[in-house]
């Protein structure tokens, strides 16, 4: 096992609310009890001022670092950033990551049991927003008796949560790292999410969300294939697969998977169905589409006036799903308010996925920023 790993971790559970005292969602619907599954790495210091909350993206979960058992083939999704001596140094910081509500890895979501019926919620699960996800995390942070988060960090949809936290609970966020994200999805990104949802809901196995066991695997796989294209750059696809054929050197004149990129996407699609729930995919992509700081808080320039956290925005040069211009738009709004903000554009060929796969480039930026935040006297 890697010496810089946080090692074996066990997920923890936290429940709040009851059917009688539910959480009120942005939509006006109620949810209770609300269950949250989370992991922590490192140790809290005496006054719990070293807590860092990590927010995961669409297909991520609470398992951000380390292993669940010694034979695991894969580590947590951000193991290259979280651990002793890494970007989020667990020798210094107490790092927390929780599964979002609406997800499918243990926190309340459409696959959870509806206490009113004793059956899985399915589409009876209310639509949740990024704000609702943050509200649930806020309950957890209060439960963990964290007065102020030293930092909150996340990429992509995780960045949405970072922004929402900083706007909703400015006093409880000391610093924030928003990676490959935006103040709202572009039309193009919503369009891709629409295709993904459509692939699921048009799969006959979806059954209006009341599937059991397998569910709309074909639809979910197709959704993931589309998604996966948007996470990679054209340059990377070209370099990695080009027009190569997977196993032959002659065209076969049939419709089976033939190009290397075809078999790669097919593999990614079907692997995803083994670890993700189709209804959750619908709920979470919808929450992403709904997220819009301008709609919730007014023009960015006015909205960001309420932010007090020291901010770092990071974008990737080849990310076309959350392009640099969208990060810079937020940087500009922070500068217009005279707020402490830093901006780094990391050069990369990996597209949107770079924040997950190019650990070496990201690590010094995160470590440096956190060190700088630690040096600042608290206002």
């Amino acid at each position: 096992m890697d010496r810089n790993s946080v090692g074996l971790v066990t997920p923890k559970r936290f429940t709040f609310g009851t059917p009688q005292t539910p959480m009120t969602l942005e939509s006006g619907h109620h949810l209770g009890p609300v269950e949250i599954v989370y992991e922590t790495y490192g140790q809290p210091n005496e006054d719990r001022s070293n807590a860092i909350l990590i927010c995961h993206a669409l297909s991520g979960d609470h398992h951000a670092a380390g292993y669940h058992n010694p034979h695991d083939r894969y580590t947590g999704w951000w193991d290259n950033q979280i651990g002793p001596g890494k970007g989020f140094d667990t020798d210094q910081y107490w790092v927390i990551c929780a599964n979002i509500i609406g997800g499918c890895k243990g926190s309340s979501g459409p696959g959870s049991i509806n206490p009113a019926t004793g059956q899985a919620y399915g589409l009876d699960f209310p639509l949740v927003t990024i704000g609702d996800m943050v509200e649930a995390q806020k309950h957890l942070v209060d439960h963990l008796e964290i007065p102020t988060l030293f930092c909150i960090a996340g990429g992509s949809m995780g960045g949405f949560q970072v922004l929402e936290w900083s706007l909703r609970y400015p006093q409880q966020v000391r610093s924030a790292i928003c990676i490959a994200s935006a103040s709202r999805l572009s039309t193009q990104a919503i369009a891709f999410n629409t295709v993904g949802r459509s692939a699921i809901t048009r799969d006959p196995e979806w059954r209006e969300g009341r599937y059991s066991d397998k569910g709309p695997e074909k639809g979910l796989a197709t959704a993931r294939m589309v998604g996966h294209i948007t996470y990679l750059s054209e340059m990377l696809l070209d370099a990695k697969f080009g027009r190569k054929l997977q196993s032959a050197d002659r065209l076969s004149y049939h419709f089976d998977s033939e190009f290397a990129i075809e078999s790669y996407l097919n593999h990614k699609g079907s692997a995803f169905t083994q670890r993700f729930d189709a209804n959750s995919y619908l709920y979470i992509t919808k929450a992403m589409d709904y997220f819009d700081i301008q709609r919730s808080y007014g023009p960015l320039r006015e909205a960001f006036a309420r932010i007090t956290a020291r901010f770092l925005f990071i974008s990737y040069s080849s990310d076309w799903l959350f392009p640099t211009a969208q990060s810079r738009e937020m940087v500009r709004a922070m500068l217009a308010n005279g707020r402490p903000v830093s901006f780094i554009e990391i050069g990369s060929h990996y597209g949107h996925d770079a924040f997950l796969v190019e650990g070496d480039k990201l690590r010094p930026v995160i470590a440096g920023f956190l060190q700088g935040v630690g040096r600042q006297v608290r206002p």
Partner: protein
Amino acid sequence: MNSGYVDRLSRTDREVILTLVPEGVRVLDLGCGDCSLLNDLVTHRRIRGTGVDIDGRQLVNGLAYGVNVYQGDLDEGLSDFPDHAYDYVILNQTLQVVKHPLQVLKEMLRIGRFGIVGFPNFAQWQLRFGHFFRGRAPKSPALPFEWYDTPNIRVLSILDFLDYCRQEKIHVVKQRHLLGGRWLRTGRLPHLNNLLAHIGLFVITRKVGVMNLQ
């Protein structure tokens, strides 16, 4: 922006810049490299600083110092920065390496109340001498480059800069000239400075009335 070049200079200009920046002001450093000047200003002048550079790997140092950094190309403009957002905008040893120096100068005086501009004087006598007698492209301790590897794409003298300021109604509030190893504080004899100084450092502003502050 070009750390190698900057490192090869003696960096006495840094100490002079420290004397030119008052306590507690907001400072933007354009072409800040590894942000060490800003860090010195934070330590000695308690400024609030932001550094701009094209090289993100160098800016990581700035993050660790606790200064704000902004990765960007000066030649692509500074439109993300609002008007009058800073008290001082520093452009040290950078004017001669940008493609659009006039645009950068205009931007710095839009964003800041004062600008501090430092550049190598291409009319220093050694350079003139080399040019005149040796018939070679200018080289000096402050300009140690060959014609093919110089980062300096804009060649200007102290008089050129003063002409530009006059023409644009930019006031020169203070000036410092590096002669040999010493900094001269006067601007009374511009032609002599232009002949003798390796480096010129100027505090400039667009605001009328601040001339009297000197």
